[in-house]
C-alpha cells in the first residue's frame, strides 16, 4: 500500500487521528493529545503512518543518509566537509575502506566525496564516513571529475527513491550507445555526475534540471528516452556537418567552449547568451535546434 495524500496543510494545523499507535514522520509533532503540523505541504498517510510532503533547500542531517560533500579543510585527524547543513560535517581520515594510519586517501580542499552520515545529533557537529555499515566502500568515496548540481531536497529524495529504476534504464539505453554515465545522488540536495564527454554532461544536467517539476513517470521518461535522443541528435546533426564543439560548464558562472571554426563559436556564444533568460524547456528546445543555426 502506498502513501496517499490527505490534504494541504499549514503549520499549526491539527491532524485528527483516531488510532493510538501512530507513527509520525517529518513535519508533524505531538503535543500532549493533539498532533500539530509544523510545515506547509501535503499531508500523506499510510495506515497509521503520517508525514508531510514538503520542500526545502536547507539540509538537516539524519543518520544513515547519503550525501555529496565538498572538502573545505583539514583539522587534526579529520576533514571538514561542507554538506550544505548548518554545521560542517567531520570526516575522519580513517573512515574509508581499508584506511590505516599510513595508508589513507589524500583529499584536497575542493574535492567532492560521496559519504554516509554516521552521526547526526543536535548537540554535536555531524560526522560522515565513506564506508557502509560493513566498512566497505560500496560506492562511497572520492568523486573524481564530474559535475555537482544543487537542487531541492524533495527532488533529491524522489530521484533517490527512483534510483534503481533510473540506473537500470540508464544502463540499458546508454551503454548500448556507448555512453557512460556515473551518478551519485546526495540527499542533501546535491547530485554529482560524470560522463566521458562534456556535452553528454550538459544534456544530462539540463535534463535533470527540467525534470524537477515533473511527476515520477514523466521524470523517468524524460531522463532516459527524450534526452538521450536529443543528445544523440545534437551529436548526429552537428557531426554530420563536420562541426565539433566542446563545452565545459563551470558552476562558478563561467562556461568554456571550443569549436574548430570561429564563426561556429560566435553562433554558439550568441545562442548561449540568448538562452540565459529562457526557461529550461525553451533552453532545451533551442539546443535541439542549434544545428540549424550553424
Amino acid at each position, binding site marked *: 500500500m502506498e502513501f496517499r495524500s490527505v490534504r*494541504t496543510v*499549514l*503549520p*499549526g*494545523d*491539527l491532524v485528527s487521528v483516531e488510532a493510538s499507535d501512530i507513527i509520525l514522520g517529518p*513535519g508533524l*509533532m505531538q*503535543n500532549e493529545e493533539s498532533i*500539530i503540523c*509544523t*510545515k*506547509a*505541504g*501535503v499531508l500523506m498517510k499510510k495506515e497509521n503512518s503520517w508525514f508531510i510532503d*514538503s*520542500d*526545502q*533547500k*536547507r539540509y*538537516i542531517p539524519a543518520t544513515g543518509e547519503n550525501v555529496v560533500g565538498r572538502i573545505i579543510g583539514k583539522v587534526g585527524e579529520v576533514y571538514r566537509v561542507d554538506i550544505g*547543513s*548548518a*554545521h*560542517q560535517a567531520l570526516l575522519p581520515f580513517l573512515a574509508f575502506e581499508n584506511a590505516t594510519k599510513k595508508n589513507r586517501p589524500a583529499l584536497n580542499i575542493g574535492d567532492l566525496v560521496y559519504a554516509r552520515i554516521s552521526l547526526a545529533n*543536535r*548537540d554535536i557537529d555531524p560526522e560522515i564516513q565513506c564506508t557502509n555499515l560493513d566498512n566497505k566502500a560500496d560506492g562511497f568515496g572520492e568523486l573524481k571529475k564530474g559535475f555537482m548540481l544543487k537542487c*531541492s531536497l524533495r527532488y533529491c529524495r524522489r530521484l533517490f527513491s527512483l534510483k534503481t529504476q533510473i540506473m537500470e534504464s540508464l544502463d540499458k539505453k546508454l551503454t548500448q550507445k556507448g555512453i557512460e554515465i556515473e551518478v551519485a545522488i546526495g540527499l542533501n540536495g546535491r547530485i554529482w555526475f560524470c560522463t566521458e564527454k562534456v556535452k553528454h554532461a550538459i544534456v544530462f544536467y539540463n535534463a535533470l534540471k527540467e525534470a*524537477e*517539476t515533473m511527476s515520477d513517470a514523466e521524470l523517468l521518461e524524460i531522463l532516459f528516452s527524450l534526452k538521450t535522443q536529443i543528445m544523440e541528435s545534437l551529436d548526429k546533426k552537428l557531426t554530420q556537418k563536420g562541426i565539433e564543439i566542446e563545452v565545459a560548464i563551470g558552476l562558478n558562472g563561467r562556461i568554456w567552449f571550443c569549436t574548430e571554426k570561429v564563426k561556429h563559436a560566435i553562433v554558439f556564444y550568441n545562442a548561449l547568451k540568448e538562452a540565459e533568460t529562457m526557461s529550461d524547456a525553451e533552453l532545451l528546445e533551442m539546443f535541439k535546434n542549434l544545428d540549424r543555426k550553424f
Partner: protein
Amino acid sequence: MSLNRVDKRKFTEIRPISIEQNYVNKDGSALFKFGDSAVLCSINGPTEVKVRDEKLDKATIDVLFKPWIGSPGTNEKTHELVLRSTLESIIQANLHPRTLIQVVCQVLMDDGSILATAINATTMALINAGISMRDIAVAVSCVICKDGTILIDPKEQEIEENQSFHTFAFNKVSLNLLFCESFGVFTEKQYFDCYELSKTAAQEVINEIHNAIKYNITNGR
C-alpha cells in the same frame, strides 16, 4: 456601508493581497503585497552561527529590516525586535540549536501598514524555507480616525490624519494576540473594537495564505 475611503474600499476591507514565493535564490523567500505596500522577505538557515550569538538550546533568530528609502534607524530596529520576538514564539527553534535563522525583510514599496505586511511576508518566507513552526503569524493594521471610524489596513494617506494607529498580529490556530502595537489616544472600547475587526481581517489573510500554498503545490514549484 458607504464607500468613502480613498480607494473606494469598505472600512473593514483589506487591500488585495498578492503572494509570490521563491522570489530570490535563498533557502526561502516570499514577496507579500497589501495593495501597493510590498515587502520581500528572504530566509537563510538554519546555518552556521557566530560563537557570540550561539544559543545552546535553540536557534538564534536574526532579523534585518531594510526600509524602502534611506538607511535603517530606530524605527526599523523596533520592527526587527517585534519580528524577532513574534517569530521566537512560533518557530520551533529548539529543533536546531547552535544555528542561525536569518530573516531579511526589504520594503519594496511603502504605502502604509508596512509592519503588518512585513510580518505576513516573513510568515510566507518561513513556510517557503520549510522551517518547522508550531503555528503561523498573520498581521493586520488599522487606524481610528478623528471621527472615531476604524479603517482596516490603511494606506499611507489614511495614516497621516488619525487619532491612533494599531498593528495586531495573531496566531493562526487560536487567533490569540501575538503582538500588538497601539499608539495615539483612544478608549478601551475603541481598542477592543480594533482588536476584533483586525482579528476578522486576519482570518482573510490566513485564507489567502492557504490558497497561495495550495496553488504552489498543485502547480509545481
